[in-house]
């Protein structure tokens, strides 16, 4: 038994050493999560506005021309729970932040990353943003090992080789080449969103919003809700009831806490040339939308 145990250890030693090496490398792979946190830390004494949310705001809000220093902390599929956890962790370090924009997408109130097919992304928050507590309750090795998160050693090598995060100094990430937009793609996009929307998540997401509003209001931080424009191929295919729930709940909560809600979902100032796909703005659309949002925020304050 002892001989066998020693041999097993000897056999596993090269594997363990290689795995540890790759684990350490994987934790240093450049990605938008670590890049945004680094950006935030470098601007923590000057940033005044934080923008949260999912890919809709990540690709849709570019605060480059705003008169106040703003930072986009959105990431793909980021849900309200991640928004809240990031703010709870980093707001105390950002003394000048007075405004936080919480984008409300069509799916936001009925979505939770940990129970979606994108649940692996939860691990990025703990590895690269040091934000814990949003992982799925079900055991997943990817929540504990960056090596597995990046699909093993070959995935790590490939990611290191790419080694590129396209992001401006305000945390805005422009999408790549425009995708095809038509009625079919619109239907598919809506179906994809709706497949991960569950009405039973409504209550918990509203609670997160209320917690955010209560906690941050006491710290004199203003919350602004905004719904980013989508193209007609998307808006025409949504389930009306979901949209009604979203707007009525957000309006209620906004009224209750005295905060602003700007809804651009059906905004007809945006045409197909402003969109990357059916529900994401492109670089041009992002600049246009950011200018509109800024004007509204300043004017209506």
């Amino acid at each position, binding site marked *: 038994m002892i001989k066998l145990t020693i041999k097993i250890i*000897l*056999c596993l030693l090269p594997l363990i050493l290689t*795995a540890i090496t790759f684990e350490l490398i994987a934790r240093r792979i450049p990605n938008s999560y670590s890049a945004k946190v680094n950006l935030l830390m470098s601007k923590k004494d000057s940033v005044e506005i934080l923008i949260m949310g999912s890919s809709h705001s990540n690709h849709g809000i570019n605060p480059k021309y705003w008169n106040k220093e703003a930072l986009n902390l959105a990431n793909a599929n980021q849900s309200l729970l991640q928004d809240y956890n990031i703010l709870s962790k980093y707001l105390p370090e950002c003394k000048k932040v007075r405004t936080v924009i919480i984008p409300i997408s069509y799916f936001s109130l009925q979505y939770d990353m940990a129970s979606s097919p994108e649940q692996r992304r939860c691990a990025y928050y703990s590895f690269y943003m040091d934000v814990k507590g949003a992982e799925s309750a079900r055991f997943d090795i990817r929540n504990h090992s960056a090596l597995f998160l990046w699909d093993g050693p070959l995935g790590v090598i490939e990611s290191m080789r790419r080694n590129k995060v396209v992001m401006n100094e305000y945390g805005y990430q422009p999408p790549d080449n425009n995708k095809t937009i038509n009625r079919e793609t619109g239907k598919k996009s809506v179906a994809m969103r709706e497949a991960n929307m569950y009405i039973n998540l409504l209550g918990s997401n509203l609670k997160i919003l209320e917690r955010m509003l209560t906690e941050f209001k006491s710290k004199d931080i203003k919350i602004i809700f905004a719904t980013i424009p989508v193209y007609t191929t998307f808006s025409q295919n949504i389930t009306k009831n979901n949209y009604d729930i979203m707007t009525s709940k957000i309006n209620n909560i906004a009224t209750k806490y005295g905060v602003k809600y700007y809804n651009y979902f059906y905004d007809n100032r945006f045409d197909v040339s402003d969109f990357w796909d059916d529900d994401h703005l492109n670089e041009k659309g992002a600049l246009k939308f950011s200018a509109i949002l800024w004007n509204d925020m300043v004017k209506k304050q």
Partner: protein
Amino acid sequence: MTFNSFHYFLFLPVVYLFFYFTADRWRWLVLLFASYLFYASLNAPYLLAVLLLATGISYACGKCIASQQNEAARRSWLWIGIFACVAILAAMKYLPFLESQTNSIFKLSSNLSSMVISIGVSYFTFQAISYLVDIYLDIEEPEQHFGYFALYMAFFPKLLQGPIERAGDLLPQLKCPYRFDYDAMRSGMLLFTWGFFKKVVVVDRLAPYADQVFNNVHNYSGLSLIMGVYVYALQIYFDFSAYTDMARGTGRLFGINLTENFNSPYLAISISDFWRRWHISFSRWILDYIFKPLQLGWRSWGQVGSAVALLITFLVSGIWHGASWGFVVWGGLHGLYMASSVFYKPYQKKLHSTLGIEKTTCLKIWQIFVTFNLVSFAWIFFRANTLDDAYYVIANMLKTEKWFRFDFLLLQGNKLTAVALIAYALLSTTVFKNGIYTCNYNKYINYIIYNGLILLIFFLAKYSETKDFIYFQF
């Protein structure tokens, strides 16, 4: 929890340590508890109840058969036991089919079956039936110790996907006092690792190709379809044999030698040879408990009786795989292959001897080629999502229009798939040629081989989109 899951790598050493440090007389209890825990980890508590029910019924019926002197009573108990086992199997396996039929006839919308899984049920009910028949035929004595019998039914390495063990093979091993054997441990671990390599490196890299073709058959024709069929033939073999290797490897750690289920089936020179090499424990089962009784009953019909018995046996084997016409056609095709061989075999032999090509390498290669293609042809029905898809594949395989679609080859990771297959071929034909556990070089070369295999798995394994074992569904 499956053999290729992270949980199993924690579960197995813990169970082994408990087993190792427990006195011989209680070791069965450790294994039984571990087996039930393993089964319970599927998050379907009713499965455990079904296993207990099948265990209880077959144990009781076995004792009743043995205690009766009267032939009619013995036969009654046998049929009661068999009927109960088949009823359990049918209820678990054919519930989705029955429900869909009931829904369509009575315009209902029940979806009870979507919540029911039947992993492992086929295997332990088959074991129960073989146990009862063997007692009835006085081949085996009934097991008196309920604990050992329950362990025979539930032993976790073979619980989900076989091999289907006979009581005479497994029960004596379970009762044998365990003695730590370094060589058995080493060979068990190597066999497990080899199976793991086949699953996470070879199968998980092959699967996207077969899935791509069979889930979108109408997008392909010609060579792409042919390649899709061949890839699936490889996928199902590697998948199933990987599981068996891991099961046998695990068994060996506990001093149990489980039945070998595969013996290079794609090197078979005829369909009957294929069935001696493919899913051996299952083929033995259907041969002994379905074919032989039928053949015996129809022996007066001569060759026709044997042919009909073969046809029915393989049709049953197809139906056993599930309530789908694809499986029925698959079983029917194999039945047809086997039944026709009853008639042409004598003429084939004569022809070979007349031409003087008996026992030549060329003939052997030709026979392997033909057998592999016949088997692969039948796999089309087994894998296709519908019968229409299967017909489409067959009708368009030889069409030259859109002969080859490169997107089939451009699937992500195709280079790695090639590397995985080459690594498998090299390892299996050089290092592990005569069975992995006989790999006895000097200790330094062995060390390099072990590490090489482990590091190959580490680098080439597919970490995302891993698939369940195909035969779990049966």
